[in-house]
């Protein structure tokens, strides 16, 4: 997939109409009716897709007795923050969120930094073993996580890192996808620029941070968002590597909220918890949709 195509995709204003561009427009009503029906169909489809999220958010603001009496009362507009209060006080939800932010922050920062370094080396340097090492990095994308997580669990436990931030983060500090993506991007930067900078006496290190990184802001932003979402949404690993409540991430916290017999029917509080957990990712989606869509379109990554 070329970056151009992806840019077009991410740019609403420049959307190419499949099979429609430059076409002489059949006059008037029939075309308008066709367009209108497509618009309405899309709106209905979009509405259906958004139902689970919309229902969760509305439920989270509805008093529990009303929810349990009639789930459709969530549309009545009788709103309250009680459920958030319950979710926040009945479980250490604040702690879960802090854990998630620390875990996600470390993973995102490391993946971006290490991908910049490795992507730069693969794009710019000639060295022995380059082909092999590049295959080594890309090959790791084919290894399913299910194969690695038991040995990693044993290793991390033996290091005494279960229930620690190291345990949550260290196995994910590198991103093969990030290395590949940034290498591809760095290779599009004209080589002449590098040669000129070298003649001016700029070191490799200086060129990377003063020229390459600023030029690649878009790609780096896309990778940052991607890493953030991947880390925030992790489930299987934090589930097995933490068993102390104080070290659970938000995704795991909500699982144990459901598993708690006293709380399992408090759907108001559960939906409040779910809303809090998805809020950071929804905000990223709303404010960085362009970079996110670009990152996905360029990926090939496991969800």
């Amino acid at each position, binding site marked *: 997939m070329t970056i151009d195509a992806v840019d077009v995709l991410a740019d609403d204003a420049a959307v190419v109409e499949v*099979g429609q561009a430059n076409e002489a427009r059949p006059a008037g009503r029939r075309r308008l009716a066709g367009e209108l029906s497509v*618009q309405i169909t899309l709106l209905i489809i979009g509405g259906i897709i958004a*139902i689970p999220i919309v229902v969760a958010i509305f439920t989270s603001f509805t008093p529990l007795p009303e929810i349990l009496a009639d789930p459709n009362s969530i549309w009545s507009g009788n709103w309250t923050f009680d459920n958030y209060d319950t979710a926040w006080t009945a479980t250490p939800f604040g702690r879960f969120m802090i854990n998630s932010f620390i875990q996600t922050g470390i993973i995102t920062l490391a993946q971006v930094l290490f991908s910049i370094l490795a992507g730069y080396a693969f794009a710019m340097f000639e060295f022995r073993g380059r082909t092999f090492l590049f295959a080594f990095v890309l090959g790791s994308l084919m290894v399913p996580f299910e194969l690695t997580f038991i040995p990693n669990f044993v290793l991390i436990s033996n290091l005494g890192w279960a229930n620690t931030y190291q345990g949550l983060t260290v196995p994910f500090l590198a991103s093969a996808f990030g290395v590949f993506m940034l290498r591809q991007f760095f290779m599009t930067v004209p080589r002449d620029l590098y040669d000129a900078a070298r003649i001016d006496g700029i070191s490799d290190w200086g060129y990377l941070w003063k020229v390459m990184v600023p030029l690649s802001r878009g790609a780096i932003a896309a990778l940052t968002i991607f890493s953030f979402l991947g880390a925030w949404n992790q489930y299987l690993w934090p589930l097995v590597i933490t068993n102390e409540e104080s070290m659970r991430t938000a995704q795991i916290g909500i699982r144990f909220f459901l598993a708690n017999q006293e709380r399992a029917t408090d759907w108001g509080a559960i939906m409040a918890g779910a809303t809090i957990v998805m809020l950071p990712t929804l905000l990223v989606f709303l404010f960085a949709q362009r970079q996110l869509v670009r990152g996905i379109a360029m990926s*090939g990554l496991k969800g």
Partner: protein
Amino acid sequence: MMKTTLPAGANTARFRGRRRRPGSLARDIKAYLFLAPTLVVLGIFVYFPIIESFRLSLNRVAPFGSAEIFVGFDNYTRLLGSSEFWNNVVVSLFFMVGTVPVGIAIAVAIALLLSYPVSRLSWLHRTLIFVPVVISSAVAGVLFRWLYNPVVGHINTWLGAVGIDGPEWLTSSNWALFAVTVAVVWRQLGFNVIIALAGLQQIDNSYYEAAKVDGAGVLARVRYITLPLLSPTLLFLVVINVIISFQAFGEIDILTMGGPGQSTENLVYSVFVDGFVGTRFRGLASAQAFLLAVIIVAFSFIQFRGFRKRVHYR
């Protein structure tokens, strides 16, 4: 360039070989330092575990502790002779059949609609349709568990409004697998639409114009131009979705925990249960993980081979 420059070209090759030598050790070391963090992490946490996983699968590991006894391929023969294992294989296959074709068909249909009109509403359509892409498997599980609630869930309430008595989605062995499948397809949809849309927008408009001149209608254009030219994207979607369907875990854990009975327990869930829940059988779990990985790799490979003949490469 003229033929006479050919020897010079040959010289260049030799020159290039020589140019590397001065300071090339320093250059190598510099590159390795840039690569070190990535290589070390991938080596320790991706490649080493492959070997370790295979080694574990040849051992019986004490349930509480780390004592190991070498048992050869005992774990594998036990698995292949156990009906539970085959149940989990069948559940995984059902997941694949239930999620992949439907998920991709819906995604391509939506992408076709999305790529047709440009309007002030485009951003809204996209936002609503793409949004599941940022939802985690755990949250998706929680959202659907609420919708599926047999008494006060919205699905059964709405079904009841039109006179249908909705089933107990998650506790009925007839419906649980279907219910989980819907949640998995939903969460994957945004991703699939984005990839399909990117593929559609790489198709050159001149094809459509030519077809129009020849009098092809909308359906004919989709059938004879869009789908063949989209086939590389479709191949990619199929492979990725098959892999993802085999790896479905979060939704299952939240919605059904593999139940009722073992009707939604796929291979991944079984690896988790055997490796981490109650009495632990890490050797057995590793053997399943290894078989799962072999299946995933084999499936991707078969699909590449099978599809390659039918894929139109530009």
